[in-house]
């Protein structure tokens, strides 16, 4: 990441508007809202026909970075060939780029089917083909590029934005996660900076972003936490589980990636995933599950 944080976006330019407030009148308290330093964040003078950028810098295909962050929230992919991208991740692009649904592509190009083996997620992805610079972003979250070198990394499917076609994507055993295998680059978003930890470690499922090189986690139920909180258990039985007793337990050696937010986002694929699992149920079981789900949906409306 070459991006210098804290770029003075929209720093005011001393202009023909009278500048500072008159002394003694509505002055801000000292040390608070200092007037901007002159010459800071100013557009280049004498710029040609396009008007000066209000952000201080103008980006064009030549000044955009090659496969690097433009700012903490935007990544620029220098496209020459194909890339897998999550639907809607594209913010803007220069050049000649086409976006095609992976589902449609697989029937034409066998390599796509070989690289993308996850029927649950396939409808959320597109193949970007062509030549140009593609800017991608994900709801204003932090974006980071990761390089895999003959490795594997499992990541929350919701947070994966794009990956190069040299990588292979497979669905993880853990619902809501996908595994990338091979050598290549991928881009993932995180709510807040990514935290790297090593096992043995227990993680909150919502804060967990992914893991690399270590075995898939097992679910740990913190019995002590639950018995200590009898009242919590009662409220849990009434449908208000805190969720804090359920953790993912990592063992072995590897790296675990965490994001600094527990805000879970809706992943449409999880519904498809769970729905496909309900085939294991008998009709009577499915009926009682349905009733419980209806009760839960009604409870949450109040």
């Amino acid at each position, binding site marked *: 990441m070459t991006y210098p944080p804290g*770029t003075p*976006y*929209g*720093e*005011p*330019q001393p*202009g023909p*508007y*009278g*500048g*500072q*407030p*008159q002394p003694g*009148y*509505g002055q*801000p308290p000292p040390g608070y*809202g200092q007037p*901007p330093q002159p010459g800071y964040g100013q557009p280049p003078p004498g710029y040609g*026909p*396009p*008007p000066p*950028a*209000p*952000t201080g*810098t*103008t*980006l*064009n*295909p030549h000044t955009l970075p090659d496969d690097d962050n*433009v*700012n903490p*929230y*935007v990544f620029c992919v220098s496209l020459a060939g194909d890339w897998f991208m*999550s*639907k*809607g*991740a*594209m*913010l*803007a*692009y*220069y050049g000649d*780029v*086409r*976006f*095609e*649904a992976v*589902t*449609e592509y697989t029937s034409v190009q066998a390599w796509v089917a070989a690289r993308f083996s996850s029927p649950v997620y396939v*409808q*959320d992805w*597109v193949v970007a083909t062509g030549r140009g610079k593609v*800017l991608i*972003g*994900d*709801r*204003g979250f932090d974006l980071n590029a990761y390089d895999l070198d003959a490795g594997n990394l499992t990541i929350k499917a919701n947070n994966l934005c794009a990956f190069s076609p040299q990588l292979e994507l497979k669905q993880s055993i853990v619902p809501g996660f996908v595994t990338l295998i091979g050598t290549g680059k991928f881009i993932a978003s995180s709510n807040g900076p990514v935290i790297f930890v090593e096992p043995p470690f227990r993680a909150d499922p919502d804060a967990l972003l992914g893991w690399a090189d270590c075995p898939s986690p097992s679910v740990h139920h913190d019995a002590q936490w639950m018995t200590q909180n009898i009242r919590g258990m009662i409220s849990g039985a009434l449908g208000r589980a805190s969720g804090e007793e359920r953790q993912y337990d990592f063992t072995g050696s590897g790296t675990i990636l965490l994001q600094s937010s527990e805000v879970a986002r809706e992943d449409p694929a999880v519904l498809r995933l769970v729905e496909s699992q309900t085939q294991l149920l008998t009709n009577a079981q499915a009926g009682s599950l349905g009733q419980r789900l209806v009760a839960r949906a009604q409870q949450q409306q109040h």
Partner: protein
Amino acid sequence: MALLTAHKRVLHADLQGDRIRAASGSMVAVEGTVDFKNAGMGGGGGMRAALKRAVAGESLSLMDCTGHGRVYLARDAMDVLVVDLAGDTLTVESEHVLAHTEQLRLDVQFAGLRGVTSGQGLATTTVTGHGQVALVSEGPVMALEVAPGQDLVVDPDAYVGSRGQLSMNLVSGVSWKSLVGEGSGEPFSLRFTGHGLVLVQSSER
């Protein structure tokens, strides 16, 4: 003269007996004596703009801030950007306008089909004159240059505004097959040609 200054996610508006217009409900704090008054229909753009706005469904609710002192304006902790205009025109989505100085004129421009796809109404707002306009965006705004032979395609949800001699076309990046079945997720985008700058935010929603 009123001065707008962006401080990260808060806009400082220093008033010296004059007036600015700010999005209704965006005031977070105030120092000095400042009066707030609803600017009325059409965001103060006059009856014609009000009518156009009503027809176009471009919603913009502004209030007048008059007095002496400093007004702190913000919206949903979004990033703030101040654009200085010297007689030229800035085209902007009305939902991104946080405040503007008195001398600027806001008008509505019909944008054709584009508004239908982005769900932001049938029209965009144009800001013309000499003064400052403050915009809010999700994540910092990038200014992307468009020049002949250097077209830019933008996701309608990431589009904030544009400046310069630009023409905007609706492009469909999908074939018929994917329209019928699974869409590509980028069904419509905006293609900018000409000479100018396009402001893009870092979130597509």
